[in-house]
């Protein structure tokens, strides 16, 4: 089967890969680009562990084909910190202990960043609904929500 040559932008860098038409963007990120932050939980768009943004839109990378990424702008968890400096969300997740096993965390962080870019002052309800597609089996969600709302408050004060 002929492989498809894809040129796309991931976290600001132009990257290329060859993929089979059936391979997902998640497969391509993890197996071809060694960006293993996005996780495969369910593989069917239910759990959100593979969340990335595609042209600034939050999506499950398990439900995007690798070939569809041609010419797109992709942001993953690997692009969130600036060198050694953590993104405020990452810092607040540590402060609030908003993670335990950590498998859902990259997806939650990417989704929460997309929320705060769209809505810098979400209510608790808005944050819970926005993050409803990110399943976490450890925390019970309260600490995640507290960390997100605390980050939002800090970012608003800073701006």
């Amino acid at each position, binding site marked *: *089967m002929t492989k*498809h040559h894809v040129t796309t932008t991931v976290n600001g860098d132009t990257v290329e890969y060859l993929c089979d*038409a*059936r391979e*997902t963007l998640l497969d391509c990120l993890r197996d071809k680009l060694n960006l293993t932050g996005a996780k495969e939980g369910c*593989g*069917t*768009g239910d759990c*959100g562990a593979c*969340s990335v943004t*595609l042209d600034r*839109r*939050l*999506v*499950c990378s*398990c*439900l*995007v*084909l690798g*070939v*569809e990424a041609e010419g797109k702008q992709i942001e993953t968890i690997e692009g969130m910190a600036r060198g050694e400096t953590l993104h405020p969300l990452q810092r607040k997740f540590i402060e609030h202990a908003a993670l335990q096993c950590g498998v859902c965390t990259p997806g939650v962080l990417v*989704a929460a960043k*997309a*929320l705060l870019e769209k809505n810098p002052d979400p209510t608790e309800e808005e944050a819970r*609904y*926005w*993050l*409803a*597609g*990110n399943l976490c089996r450890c925390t019970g969600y309260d600490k995640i929500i507290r960390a997100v709302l605390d980050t939002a408050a800090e970012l608003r004060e800073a701006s």
Partner: protein
Amino acid sequence: MQYHRPASFAEASDLAAHATGITRFLAGGTDVLVQLRSEIVTPDTLIDIKAIDGVRDITRHADGSWTLGVAVTGAEMSEHPQLGREWPGVVEAMDLIGSTQIQGRATPVGNLCNGSPAADSVPAMVAAGASVTVTGPAGDRVVAVEDIPTGPGKTSLAQGELISALHIPARGANGGDAYLRFIPRTEMDIAVVGVGVSLRVDGDTITEARVSLGAVAPTVLLVEECARALIGTTLDDTALAALAAAASAACKPIDDKRGTIEFRTEVAGVLAKRAAKIAYARAKGETA
């Protein structure tokens, strides 16, 4: 699996018409890719229609009618400044589907073509009187939304045919719509029953109505008897009772783990009344 990214609907139709085996069109992929990955449906030919001009456009025409491109997502509908003001039921129905991540990819046209009787956006589109342009080897034809699904997972589209645009009529004066569904939790679930209502009033009297039921029959239903129960009334208790009775009478549901036949039949009547009240208030310019 062959992957194609045609530049026109004519080319997409031609590819599909000459393909052998299983063909699927790819827009948001929230059903097609789930079925692919679960090995429920493995297409031999996958035709990505997102490179066709205009498929992401939401256009309001001079007469107030709307055309939505086939790759317009739920998120784009919700973010549109005017669509949800004129057709709140259609936008809210689409917005009920899945998570934020799913909303970023899922399309109402895909929801329609997936053929699920429980598709949330479909009763709202049927109530709104929406139609689609179908492009095929013989050219284009316009088909009412309710004539697309023919059974669970099945549509009236022939080989080589695909939907190339979604049309929503002008809302016009004194109109309102609403969609409600029952699920046993607050979100992220499949409708046990769904009801779409669109109506128009003259003063307090309903002059036009369309009522559509989801998840209570092999396809989404357009129920004329429900419309007749509403037209000419002021949505008084007698009209609401007649509406509920007509909705329940139209149900031919299945029993499954999400709801029994009796439950779905009862709830269809209850939701029809509630949705009609919201649509009526919206038609009269009251907030609901």
